């Protein structure tokens, strides 16, 4: 796929007389990842303007939160980014704990790292598999789903649910891991490791995949920051920022004592803690390929983190603590906390008047919401066929955008 900036491709366009046309893409379109509607203004194959329309999945989560206690709102956070329910639960639980000034036990801390990082792997697997589908390759999707299924089995053993978990909660988790779970998880990690290399072969170094993604949708670091893009989208543009390392202390203490490198290109180099495939010559920092590759590295980093966490969890004595009561009274005040979720920085805010168990206001700052807002500028002047490649590389979940 030649890029429109390539003069050779534009010469052909000049020979053909075209009219401007409005094309409606979605809200039911396989490559919009849910109910996103894009209105494209096209001239031949070139898109001159993209207008996203969102809100089809709006379920009034913030309004509902004004009528529920924090623990009752946990299931609603599951349904925001439904591909990373555990990370959503954790973000909200930590925010309420910040308001309450509550610290969880050491054992619970390691449990949370295991669960959050496993969910990150599962979420990235789905994102990358579906990205392959967007670009017309079917095989990686099955490879990804096969592995993701095993993580869901582990979650089912831990909490009984496969998608909307409500497992991590304010003050800890609903229950401890069942006996034998750690062993099963270790077994999974051992068998999953070769699958990562398979994925690299199927996608990362696949020459068709590279031609569809390298040099497409290039986003500069300034543009990414200006639009509030976070997570792999920000790091794909070469900004060295990961809340697990750089965030507020209330969040980074979760990862105290863990060793990991932020998946980002520094001085033209990706981390070299493992053998990663080389960056193809066609790839430009900030393009779709880099955003994809950052997620691939993060899968590897998460595997390493889960290994460390399993070790720490098994050797830590004590209990995982007890969650707060469903109707625990909240102190007066407000707290805002952002956590590093698979799709970027997910922020939650809670405002309480101090005389009831129900907050005055809850707020969810969605990472995909900001990541999507960039398409208006990013998709200006690209080919129609590159729109799915760009949208897919942002890896959005509509449940989180519309809330």
């Amino acid at each position, binding site marked *: 796929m030649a890029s429109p900036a390539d003069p050779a491709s534009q010469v052909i366009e000049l020979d053909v007389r075209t009219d401007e046309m409005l094309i409606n893409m979605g809200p039911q379109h396989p490559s919009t990842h849910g109910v996103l509607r894009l209105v494209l203004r096209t001239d031949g194959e070139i898109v001159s303007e993209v207008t996203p329309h969102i809100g089809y999945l709006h379920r009034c989560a913030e309004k509902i939160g004004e009528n529920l206690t924090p623990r009752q709102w946990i299931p609603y956070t599951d349904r925001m980014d439904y591909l990373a329910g555990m990370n959503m639960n954790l973000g909200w639980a930590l925010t309420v704990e910040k308001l309450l000034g509550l610290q969880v036990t050491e054992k619970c801390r390691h449990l949370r790292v295991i669960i959050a990082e496993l969910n990150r792997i599962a979420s990235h697997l789905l994102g990358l598999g579906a990205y392959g589908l967007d670009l017309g390759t079917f095989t990686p999707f099955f490879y990804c789903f096969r592995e993701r299924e095993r993580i869901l089995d582990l979650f089912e053993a831990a909490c009984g649910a496969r998608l909307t978990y409500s497992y991590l909660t304010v003050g800890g988790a609903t229950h401890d891991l069942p006996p034998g779970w750690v062993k099963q998880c270790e077994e999974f990690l051992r068998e999953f490791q070769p699958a990562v290399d398979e994925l690299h072969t199927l996608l990362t170094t696949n020459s068709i995949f590279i031609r569809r993604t390298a040099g497409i949708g290039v986003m500069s670091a300034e543009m990414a920051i200006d639009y509030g893009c976070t997570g792999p989208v920000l790091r794909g543009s070469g900004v060295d920022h990961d809340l697990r390392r750089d965030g507020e202390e209330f969040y980074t203490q979760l990862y105290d004592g863990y060793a990991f490198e932020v998946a980002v290109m520094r001085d033209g180099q990706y981390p070299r803690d493992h053998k990663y495939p080389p960056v193809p010559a066609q790839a430009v920092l900030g393009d779709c390929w880099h955003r994809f590759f950052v997620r691939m590295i993060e899968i590897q980093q998460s595997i390493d983190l889960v290994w460390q966490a399993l070790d720490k969890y098994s050797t830590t004595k004590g209990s995982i603590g007890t969650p707060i009561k469903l109707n625990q009274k909240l102190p007066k005040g407000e707290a805002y906390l952002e956590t590093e979720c698979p799709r970027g920085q997910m922020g939650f805010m809670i405002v309480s008047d101090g005389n009831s168990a129900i907050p005055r*206001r809850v*707020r969810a700052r969605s990472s995909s919401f900001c990541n999507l807002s960039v398409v208006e500028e990013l998709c200006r002047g690209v080919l129609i066929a590159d729109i799915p490649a760009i949208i897919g590389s942002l890896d959005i979940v509509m449940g989180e955008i519309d809330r």
Partner: protein
Amino acid sequence: MADHPPLIEQLKQKFGDGITGWNLEAIDPWIEVAPDALVEVCRYLKEEPSLQFNLLNCITAVDYYEPDPKKAKKADFEPHLELVYHLWSIPHKRSLVLKVMLPRWKDDQVGQLPEVPSVSGVWRTALWHEREVYDLSGVYFVGHPDLRRILLPEDWEGHPLRKDYQFPLEYHGIRCQ
């Protein structure tokens, strides 16, 4: 957080009455800015090399209003709207919270949305965030290039995150209550 007192001094010197208050004891310490000075303060916070708050995380509107008249007597606040801006500086790894206090309605005329200058010229993140706040909480951002509803349909009435919001009986023949 220890950096906050010198920052307040710095801002007070530069903007004078534009900085109307602060609270350093809060869990997330905040600085209150007058609506008229908001854009200037934000641009300074973003561009000053020693600050560089280049990431706008979130804009939240909190409605302080008690619809129940019995409870309203006991409430320890005057009815008002609060806009909360959460900023982050990637180079300096620190956060900052700005607050803007607004009346619930402009000139106390119910239905007239309160106005505040848009910061979308400083951070483009605000383009969508301000649309969301306008849509759900009913704040008019002056200077926003494209202030439309974003999550709700364009013909929706009212702003649901207001505490006195009345749910509609029906919407295009769909029962809502």
